[in-house]
């Protein structure tokens, strides 16, 4: 633990000095902790930081006590349960057994691509989303967005009715207006009619749009998504002459180089990529089988945090690194000036050597944020390294129309400016908010005679449109979509639309003159046609095909075969010559989609707003993220508002200092600063789109930062629930591990087993336990939202998070390690209730509300809890959460529908915490008993475990020595945290290993970056 600082402010220089003085490995969660900032110490020492207590005099106190005692006496004895009614079905639907959930396969499209889901439905009410193990992009896992999508379905702020010029209208009126327009287009062949969609992989939707374009040949189809795949597409075109999809086979790769590719958290295939990446890095993986990951990036990402070597460099320098590598691997590239970028050529040489030694087992990955040329160089490098066909394969495009989004939007904006657009149909997109600032999109939209917007929210774009049409949620509508490998999923609804909404298919059908044609018919008819044309098959008749496709959640045989392409070096060489690598001056601005609200589309989702961002741990806000060195130079601290100016555009943004950020860059996240998101998401943070231009969507040199000396309250949970030191994260390099496999055990000081005052428990049946593999945890937060959805965990709001009252039962602690503030290693550690065998919380509860079960669970009985909070006070892991106010929304009808009926909705004044998903244990136990057998290994899956993309969490019966969890507990890397307190936690961790390149490590040791 770092010593406590004085009240005086601390500077970076002092911090560095303090760090240098530390012995051994240093883990820290924030600069404030490192500095022993007084505010941090105060927060740490107050178990429950509370606002100043209200002044109550003795007389009032006695009055209140008397009254509450009397009321308590009366209410406990004289309340009768209100009479309730039961409404059975009149005609019971087949398959529905009241009280038992059903699961249906469907998919969620995100960025246009489908990820397969299984959705839990309680008597027609979807409550929980899980991944579909049969789907190639999900493999049974989900990300935070899929987990939180269930809340959007029930969001009371969703658009519910048709609006015409802001007033409530009807669908019939819109169909009428559309019929008149159609007559006009028939005369003009659709001149001036434009459709703007997001990325489309849906075969049905693409077919519909093409039909519209056939019917009205002068009409145009535009696509725009703020987080598009433009650079990837342009890069492939540059390298191969045409666009092909790139697919990584990470399980085959031994050495990986990521050039800003956040492949674990970004992109349509990230869940699969995370699973494959981790296959060679689990605790059980043989040290000789491990893979190695190098990451160059400007701003820390989840992928960067997993890297064995992470190099923070400015975004524009990455091209030079790619060039230097290409040159060293035998491609004809002029030598870039590495020295001016502060990069040691020896480092690039070491890297090139490592890649070269693993020809066919290496992989270069390039992120969307890098320009097309770097993508093309990446393809060339993979070809030169013999990786094609082994660690990387190519297929035909999956997108229906893989165009450049930014160019498409620019063309639309210019046409609007020139008056060439007569009618604009916006399907799902929100360009008035997300368009780059230089296009003046919102301004230019006003020149269009008829503007129609279909969307789930009456958002910024809806405000500027004549007609706003409410769109159905994907759980309410029929549709289809494709996975990145091409596999089709026919998406079935789980519930009839809650409001007067229609799907995109239904609105496009109306453009084709088929108003009110149900989405079911549209999607089914398309696939019937495909089936009859022999495009899909494997079944004797269409009905069987259709039923199987819906049941399985995938249409078999629709994945795309690999194609063989080769890099056309001449085109790349020409481009290389055109753009000499430059050494930029000045501070760079870097844009990123927000890790929780993405491009802004999830802004009104309270779960995602409150979810701490994986690396900054900020909630409810975005910030201008800068490195400690830059902060020192500017003299700013966390929360100080600065003006970011780029040309004549500027925004005011609070500063957040993030170790690991490249020094000369400032990162801003998109998705905030919305003004018509809804009651949750409006007026939070600042709008980074106002600095973004169509020419440089991801980074650009030349942003001015000016101090304003004003402050904005940023709330981060990085210092909350701090457990203070004591080898919480245990880590070693593979080399160290080989030398001393027991390093993780040796760091702990477990007391002898007989040294205890507690009675020993006897577990003769099941004995539940959990192991979390820190090697596999990528810190993606999916478990946090999965737990929230499963366990009815409320949202508390920014003000309450600020004083440490967030309610998440599982938190991901993020640690920095090392003495270099600019380049720390990053570790994630999920922390949930440890279900200690000798639980300190149990002995202090005066009412017996928290007691030990005979299967090892530390049970929390809400109706016994009187809220003394002694248990929480006594919990060294700080995993107990107290419901200070009535956080759960008991009033909004739609939100009630989301609740898991198997878990109590807690009220105020009650302690709560992780239960190991006891409802799932009980369900499995009852099923097993009904079949006269024991619960099998893998039958009880906790919500966090189920969501985890990398299977980092393993749960099961410790008494079953064959179970996976028992085997992992026996692993040499297994360790418990704070076991020196003799708590005997049931949740343990597998120590984190890293696989650094000794050659690179030696260079870094010298101090050269």
């Amino acid at each position: 633990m770092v010593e406590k600082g004085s009240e005086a402010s601390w500077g970076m220089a002092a911090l560095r000095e303090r760090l240098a003085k530390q012995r051994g490995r240093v883990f820290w969660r924030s600069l404030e902790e490192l500095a022993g900032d007084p505010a941090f110490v105060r927060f740490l020492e107050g178990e429950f930081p509370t606002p100043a207590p209200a002044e109550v005099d003795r007389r009032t106190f006695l009055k209140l006590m008397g009254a509450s005692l009397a009321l308590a006496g009366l209410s406990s004895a004289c309340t009768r349960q209100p009479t309730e009614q039961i409404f059975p079905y009149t005609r019971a639907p087949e398959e529905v057994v009241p009280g038992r959930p059903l699961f249906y396969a469907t998919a969620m499209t995100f960025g246009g691509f489908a990820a397969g889901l299984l959705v839990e439905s309680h008597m027609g009410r979807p409550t929980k989303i899980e991944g579909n193990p049969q789907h190639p992009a999900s493999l049974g896992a989900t990300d935070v967005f899929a987990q939180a999508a269930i809340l959007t379905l029930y969001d009371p702020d969703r658009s519910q009715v048709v609006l015409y010029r802001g007033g409530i209208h009807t669908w019939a009126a819109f169909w009428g207006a559309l019929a008149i327009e159609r007559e006009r287009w028939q005369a003009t062949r659709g001149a001036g009619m434009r459709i703007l969609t997001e990325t489309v992989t849906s075969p049905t939707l693409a077919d519909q749009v093409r039909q519209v374009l056939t019917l009205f040949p002068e009409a145009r189809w535009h696509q725009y998504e703020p987080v598009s795949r433009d650079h990837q597409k342009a890069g492939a075109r540059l390298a191969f002459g045409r666009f092909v999809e790139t697919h990584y086979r990470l399980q085959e790769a031994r050495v990986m180089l990521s050039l800003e590719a956040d492949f674990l958290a970004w992109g349509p295939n990230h869940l699969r990529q995370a699973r494959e990446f981790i296959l060679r890095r689990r605790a059980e993986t043989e040290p000789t089988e491990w893979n190695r990951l190098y990451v160059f990036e400007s701003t820390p990402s989840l992928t960067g945090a997993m890297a064995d070597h992470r190099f923070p460099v400015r975004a524009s320098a990455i091209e030079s690194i790619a060039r230097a590598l290409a040159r060293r691997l035998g491609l004809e590239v002029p030598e870039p000036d590495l020295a001016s970028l502060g990069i040691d050529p020896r480092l690039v040489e070491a890297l090139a050597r490592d890649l070269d030694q693993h020809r066919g087992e290496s992989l270069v990955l390039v992120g969307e944020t890098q320009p097309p040329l770097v993508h093309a160089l990446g393809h060339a490098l993979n070809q030169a390294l013999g990786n094609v066909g082994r660690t990387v394969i190519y297929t035909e495009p999956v997108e229906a129309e893989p165009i450049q989004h930014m160019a498409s939007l620019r063309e639309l904006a210019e046409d609007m400016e020139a008056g060439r657009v007569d009618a604009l149909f916006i399907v799902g997109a929100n360009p008035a908010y997300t368009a780059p600032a230089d296009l003046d999109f919102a301004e230019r939209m006003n020149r269009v005679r008829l503007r129609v917007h279909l969307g789930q929210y009456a958002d910024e774009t809806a405000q500027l449109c004549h007609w706003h049409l409410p769109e159905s949620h994907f759980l309410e509508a029929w549709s289809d979509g494709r996975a990145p490998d091409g596999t089709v999923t026919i998406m079935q609804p789980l519930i009839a639309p809650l409001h007067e909404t229609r799907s995109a298919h239904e609105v496009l059908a109306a453009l084709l003159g088929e108003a009110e044609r149900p989405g079911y018919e549209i999607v089914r008819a398309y696939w019937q046609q495909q089936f009859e044309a022999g495009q899909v098959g494997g079944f004797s008749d269409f009905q069987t095909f259709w039923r199987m496709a819906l049941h399985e959640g995938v249409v078999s045989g629709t994945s795309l075969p690999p194609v063989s392409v080769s890099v056309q070096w001449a085109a790349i060489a020409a481009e290389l010559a055109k753009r000499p690598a430059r050494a930029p001056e000045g501070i760079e601005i870097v844009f990123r989609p927000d890790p929780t609200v993405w491009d802004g589309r999830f802004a009104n989702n309270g779960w995602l707003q409150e979810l701490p961002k994986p690396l900054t741990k900020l909630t409810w806000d975005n910030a201008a993220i800068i490195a400690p060195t830059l902060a020192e130079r500017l003299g700013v601290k966390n929360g100080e508002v600065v003006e970011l100016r780029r040309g004549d555009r500027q925004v005011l943004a609070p500063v957040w200092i993030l170790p690991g950020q490249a020094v000369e860059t400032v990162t801003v996240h998109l998705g905030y600063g919305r003004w018509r998101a809804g009651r949750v998401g409006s007026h939070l943070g600042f709008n980074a789109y106002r600095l973004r231009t169509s020419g440089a969507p991801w980074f650009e040199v030349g942003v001015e930062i000016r101090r304003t000396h004003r402050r904005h309250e940023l709330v981060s949970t990085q210092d909350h629930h701090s457990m203070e030191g004591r080898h919480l994260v245990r880590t070693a390099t593979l080399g160290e591990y080989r030398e001393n496999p027991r390093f993780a055990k040796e760091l702990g000081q477990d007391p002898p087993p007989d040294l205890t005052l507690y009675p020993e428990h006897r577990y003769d049946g099941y004995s539940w336990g959990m192991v979390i593999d820190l090697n596999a945890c990528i810190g993606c937060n999916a478990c946090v939202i999965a737990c929230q959805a499963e366990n009815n965990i409320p949202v508390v709001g920014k003000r309450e998070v600020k004083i440490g009252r967030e309610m998440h039962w599982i938190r991901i602690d993020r640690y920095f390690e090392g003495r270099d503030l600019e380049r720390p290693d990053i570790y994630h550690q999920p922390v949930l209730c440890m279900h200690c065998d000798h639980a300190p919380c149990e002995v202090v509860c005066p009412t017996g509300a928290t007691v030990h079960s005979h299967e090892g669970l530390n049970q929390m009985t809400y109706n016994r809890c009187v809220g003394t909070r002694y248990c929480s006070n006594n919990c060294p892991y700080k995993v107990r959460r107290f419901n200070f106010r009535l956080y759960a929304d008991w009033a909004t009808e739609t939100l009630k529908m989301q609740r898991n009926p198997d878990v109590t909705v807690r009220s105020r004044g009650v302690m709560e915490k992780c239960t190991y998903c006891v409802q799932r244990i009980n369900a499995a136990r009852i099923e097993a008993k009904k079949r006269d057998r024991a619960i099998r290994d893998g039958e009880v899956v906790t919500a966090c475990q189920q969501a985890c993309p990398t299977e980092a969490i393993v749960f099961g019966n410790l008494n079953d020595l064959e179970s996976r969890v028992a085997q992992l507990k026996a692993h040499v890397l297994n360790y418990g945290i704070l076991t020196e307190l003799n708590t005997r936690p049931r949740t343990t961790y597998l120590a984190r290993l890293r696989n650094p390149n000794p050659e690179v490590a030696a260079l870094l040791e010298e101090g050269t970056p």
Partner: protein
Amino acid sequence: MAQIFHRSTNLIARVSILGAVFIIAAVTWALAALNRSPYVTQVGVAREQPVPFSHKHHVKQLGIDCRYCHTSVEESRFAGIPPTETCMTCHSQIHATSPMLEPVRESWRTNRPIPWTRVYDLPDFVYFDHSIHVKQGVACVTCHGPVDEMPLVWKASTLHMEWCLECHRQPELYVRPREYVFRTDWAPREDQRELGRRLVREYGIDRPEKLTDCSVCHR
């Protein structure tokens, strides 16, 4: 100044202090008694229903099995209230014009459910599962009382936690062979305690300490 109160008033003070103790005790007892009284627990109070459905008639006189209507009792936590369709399987033919059954026919015509009054209503923080109780030899009548004698159903037990625990602490006193779970006319032929012990072993019913773990019912 003269004393306002005579010395004898001290006695009144003493008596009233002593009385207060009794009064508090009496009030506490009264409240506790009230809490267990049928007024609060509704035990033994026949509840009015939209259709005066008689279990006595259907079960005892006609001999219909419980599961004919409560279909999900063996597979779900909820025993199931029959859909109107189930009533109409017979009553489209039998008593097809009876005015008493008009709400049923109306429900069938209009596709609106019959709003039955709940008789057994556990608090929301208690999770009870019918299927496992039935499987482990707890009969319908063990909790629901002599349903076959009830023209209108009443609650046969308080559903207080002490009542649940009575069985969870000593299941051998209540379990019966599985084949008799749905029977209303069963009585143990041997000593219940002996039989119970044997069945508890045979059915693998957990030991009482486990059955009384909080999270068995609360979560």
